[in-house]
């Protein structure tokens, strides 16, 4: 009986975990505040990308290379695609083995609202990264990140 319960419990964990891996969280206007709150006192990077942005793939490939150097909460990925493209975004994340990261996808028919909620000064170009220090002072970067640049930040903060 106990054995059965253990098996059932394990199953529950395994099944629900594997299911959770296939879920990009919907990103709303308040989502960044939530992401920041969950990382109080910790440094992290937010990377915005899109399925329809060839340079973003380079970004995903670089993140795949360096993902083990991030702390558990050190990397947040937000797909700036409409949520109806969740399947395509998920497929790419899985391909680049980034599906276990903290993944989000834009969920607002008016993406301008979400862009504004992230950064009123961002024009929407991709890829776009925000580097947060421990006190959550942040700086931004537009276009692909360089490996050395990211490594330097990782060494200094993670």
């Amino acid at each position, binding site marked *: 009986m106990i054995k059965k319960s253990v098996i059932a419990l394990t199953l529950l964990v395994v099944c629900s975990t594997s299911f959770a891996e296939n879920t990009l969280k919907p990103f709303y206007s308040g989502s960044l505040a939530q992401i920041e709150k969950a990382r109080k006192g910790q440094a992290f990077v937010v990377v915005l990308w899109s399925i329809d942005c060839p340079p973003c793939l380079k970004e995903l490939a670089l993140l795949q290379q360096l993902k083990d150097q991030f702390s558990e909460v050190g990397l947040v990925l937000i797909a700036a695609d409409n949520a109806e493209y969740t399947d395509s975004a998920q497929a790419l994340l899985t391909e680049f083995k980034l599906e276990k990261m903290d993944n989000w996808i834009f969920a607002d028919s008016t993406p*301008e609202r979400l862009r504004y909620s992230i950064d009123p000064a961002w024009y929407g170009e991709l890829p776009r990264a925000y580097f947060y220090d421990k006190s959550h002072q942040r700086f931004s970067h537009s276009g692909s990140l360089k490996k050395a640049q990211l490594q330097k930040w990782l060494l200094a903060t993670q």
Partner: protein
Amino acid sequence: MMKPLLNTCAALLLVSIALVTTAQAKMAHGNHKGSNKSLLAECLKPAALPSPNCGRVPTAVFGPKGKLYVVFSQHGHIYLTTSDDKGKTFQSSIVVNRKPERIYDDGENRPKIVLGKSGEIYVSWTHKTPGRYSGDVRFSRSLDGGITFNTPITVNSDRAIISHRFESMSLDEKGRVYLIWIDKRDKIKAKENQQKYAGVSLYYAVSDNSGESFRPNQKLVDHSCECCRIAVDQDSAGRVVALWRHVYPDNIRDHAIAYVSPENSPIQGMPIRATDDAWQIDGCPHHGPDLSIDSENRAHLAWFTQGEKNKGLMYGRFDFKNEKTSLVHSIDNSPSASRPQVQVMGDRIYLMWKKLNGEQIDLLISRSSDEGKNWSKPEMIATTKNGSDHPDWLVHDDELYASWHTQSEGLRLISVTE
């Protein structure tokens, strides 16, 4: 032992799916987040017929006697419909591609429609092929006023599963049909030879038999940006001009302009750099320019940049005579302003763009009556609370309309002529 395990897993999964589906359903009906589907009551009915209001990215053009022709994408089809009352009501839609296919239909990628002088209806779009960022340029025509369409043809001769996308269409003075698109074949070739190749290339094809067939594909240019629509217009003599975001050395993504040759040889001295903002980015603006040529063959340009020299939405006037862009000025440098469109109407020039205003998106215009030197204060001509497509200009004789498709309102025509 395995079977019950699998069953349990499946059951759990089903419960999860049910939960997620409910959540998604709530999402769709509750706050309309994350979907571009129409919110009009007529479109929510299961038996809703294809229409420009319910479909995606409707693109319109006025024909003789003010008849409006609209193409749009819905359920894997491109449809054509017409309206005799400037878009208030539409005739039943006619399918252009009988066999459904995956279609790029997201604003920067939309079907195109051009009308020939003898009533020909030319329609193009990009078919999404299985690979990533890949697509084929598709074309179909009707010679009977839109009653029937030819079986669509693929215009790009390179059939690799790579990008042949963002097509634009124009006619010239002889009624020849031009299709110009972004093509990745040279980048792939360079990669195979282990050579670097910035951006991708532009290819085009010309039909001189009313779209029955196209002559061999020609290269227009190397090193264009890979994900921005191409603007096209005719000059006063009816020659075709294209404007696109180019990749200049060091990844500077400013714009280039060129006449497109109907012959099988490129035009000397083309392309010419048309904007100089020094926007260096290894990224994807996904934000193409717009172009309108006046009677003196000056090209009025509207574009988006985030360069060292200029930021936001810009206007400028390019003159082929001295190959210079003058009167460069900021239309709107707000980060939430997008999709600038420009249109010459006689001695007036109009600009139009979208901008976030709190929770809503406004459609703004500005006018110049002195050839682009001075501009009126932005004026809001429409607004919407939900998703919105790129705006576009529609010209009927001396009347100018903005066409704008929004989730909540459907396709609207807004008169802007004073």
